[in-house]
């Protein structure tokens, strides 16, 4: 296969839009990033910013009204969108798997939970026999902290946390190179969320798997990921090592997002109120999409999309970055 030092995933200039009654909604615009093998990438942003659309693009699971207007998604150097539907089908789960947002509804209510995982294992011929497949599921259950006996149960007999674990076990079932976790803990209570985050991180390190963790919860992303990208209005506005981004945010949006997040530890610092609403993506504002809400906006922000400012792997798309160590690239 390819060199281990090559990125596992390259997203290059991805743009996606949806045709709706209200016109064309530009869900993703010119998103590019790379993901190294064995590392954890976080995508942060508010609802409607395009995080989930990016995930669906990677899986190539798009609704009928979606249109890929530009860009490529390279998985191990292979363009996902150039594969035939059948080739793509064989890539799914084997190469990229996904933990869906609504774990409650991801398990089919009429089949036993174990059966739904075995189904994926058999489709991709990961194990030669039924017995081996069952043993594999039992192993996965133990890994995510579930009693293997629960395989024989139906989804409605599981609690929310158990279902989420079963869904994670399902995502791991075919040893994927990349797992996308889309808001995996949103509906869960903090104590359960804490456990699942710990297990996810432990498993990722143990299996040396890559992971893309999508969430609006900055705290969870900060704890789980190595690299983080911040999305706003369909664009990736800032990206870098998690520590860099969260300690010295460069984009005013990142900074605003962080300071509007209440915290229970440390001093009670005042929260920032971000005025206004995210833009309508069927009619986005010209220039930087954040300018109507940005305190630092100037005329240039209102007319031209900002270039990248960069320092090492940390970059932001802003005319007036808060972190001055980031410099414009030629």
């Amino acid at each position, binding site marked *: 296969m390819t060199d281990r030092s090559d990125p596992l995933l390259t997203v290059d200039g991805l743009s996606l839009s949806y045709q709706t009654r209200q016109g064309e909604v530009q869900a993703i615009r010119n998103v590019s990033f790379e993901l190294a093998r064995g590392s954890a990438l976080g995508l942060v942003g508010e609802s409607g910013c395009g995080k989930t659309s990016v995930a669906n693009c990677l899986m190539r699971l798009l609704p009928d009204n979606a249109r890929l207007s530009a860009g490529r998604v390279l998985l191990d150097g292979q363009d996902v969108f150039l594969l035939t539907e059948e080739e793509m089908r064989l890539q799914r789960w084997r190469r990229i798997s996904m933990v869906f947002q609504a774990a409650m509804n*991801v*398990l089919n209510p009429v089949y036993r939970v174990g059966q739904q995982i075995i189904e994926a294992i058999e489709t991709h011929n990961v194990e030669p026999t039924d017995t081996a497949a069952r043993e594999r599921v039992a192993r996965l259950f133990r890994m995510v902290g579930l009693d293997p006996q629960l395989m024989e149960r139906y989804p409605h007999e599981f609690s929310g946390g158990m279902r989420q674990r079963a869904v994670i076990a399902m995502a791991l079932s075919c040893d994927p190179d990349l797992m996308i976790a889309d808001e995996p803990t949103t509906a869960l209570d903090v104590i359960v969320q804490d456990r699942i985050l710990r297990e996810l991180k432990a498993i990722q390190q143990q299996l040396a798997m890559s992971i893309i963790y999508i969430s609006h919860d900055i705290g969870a992303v900060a704890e789980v990921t190595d690299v983080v990208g911040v999305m706003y209005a369909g664009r990736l506005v800032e990206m870098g090592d998690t520590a860099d981004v969260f300690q010295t945010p460069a984009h005013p949006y990142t900074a605003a997002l962080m300071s509007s997040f209440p915290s229970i530890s440390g001093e009670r610092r005042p929260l920032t109120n971000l005025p206004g609403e995210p833009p309508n993506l069927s009619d986005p504002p010209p220039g930087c999409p954040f300018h109507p809400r940005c305190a630092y906006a100037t005329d240039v922000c209102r007319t031209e999309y900002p270039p990248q400012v960069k320092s090492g792997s940390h970059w932001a798309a802003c005319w007036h970055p808060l972190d001055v160590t980031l410099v414009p690239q030629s």
Partner: protein
Amino acid sequence: MTGYLVRRTGQMVLTLFLIITFTFFLVQAQPGDYASFYVLNPDLPPEVKDQIRAAFGLDKPAWQQYLIHLKNTLTGNLGVSFGNFPRPVLDVLAERVPRTLVLFLTATAVSFYIGFFLGKAIAWRRGGLFEYGATISGAMLFTAFTPAFALMMIWVFAFRLGWFPVGKFLDPLVWRGADVSANYVFGNMLLSAAAFITFALLVMLFLKRFGRRVPSVVALPILLGGALVIVVAWTLSGIGGLALDIVKHMVLPVATLTLISFAGTMLLTRNSMLETIREDYVMAARAKGLPDKQVRDRHAARNAMLPIVTSLVYSLIFAIDGSVIIESVFSWPGTGLTLLEAVRSEDLPLVMGAMLFIGTLSLLAHVIVDVLYVYLDPRIRYQ
């Protein structure tokens, strides 16, 4: 689960009791009381009238008559038919109920299968002329004026093409000189059908134990073999020709009933599928890389089936109603035609008996659907 079924069955028994009561008072409520219909009927000899008076307590007050009627019904004494005098109502119905059952069970099974199959196909490949055409023609058939449609079928397939007989249960020319009765032949046909279905179910169960990896190709030859054995047995028995005659008479009514009732299931399946397709587990199934057909059949259609099974009650009752019309057009001697003749000749005991049987039939359908639903939905099974 058992508790649920027991409760449902209990409700059904109660419903049946209500139907008996309802029909009784319906007949009571009409101008001229129940008694006068018996007493004034000129066809009846005087001693029979006395007998009826005694048996039904017609000189007693209404509530006593009702109790007597209830007791008679529960002990299977449904009275004596005027039109088929002196045959008891129960005897007449015992002959006719199986004929209706065969007609409408076959038609329902076939139309449910076709409707489900087409419905999931048009929902999966949405848009285009196929969906449009299937929906329009489905709606046309579903709402077609059944008698006219049945007559058209007769005209095309019986008169113009001459493939099938015009109507009735059997052809007297074929049966002349036969030393067995039609009921005997028909009864044996039912037995063979039941035997074959049991055999098929056993084969399916047996194969399922070997797991999913046993191809379903194995099942087909075994089932075909079983069918062949039955056909050969009938041919050797000497009454195969008579059975064939009955089968020939069955084809057209069954086909007509199927055509008018499959569309309901089809359109419902389409809607149910369209809702299920949006469920997250269908997307998850696709994400898992399952083949398209497996996503459609095992995930989308399997769940879409649940509301359709619930509505199977409607389809069954639609088919019972439809069979009344079909029987009258095809002169098929089943419960429906019996009811119609009884109504026309004011043969009240037979009317009440036929209603009772039709009601029982639809209640049974109800219970069967409940059991099926419990089997299909584990969420109910474990309550």
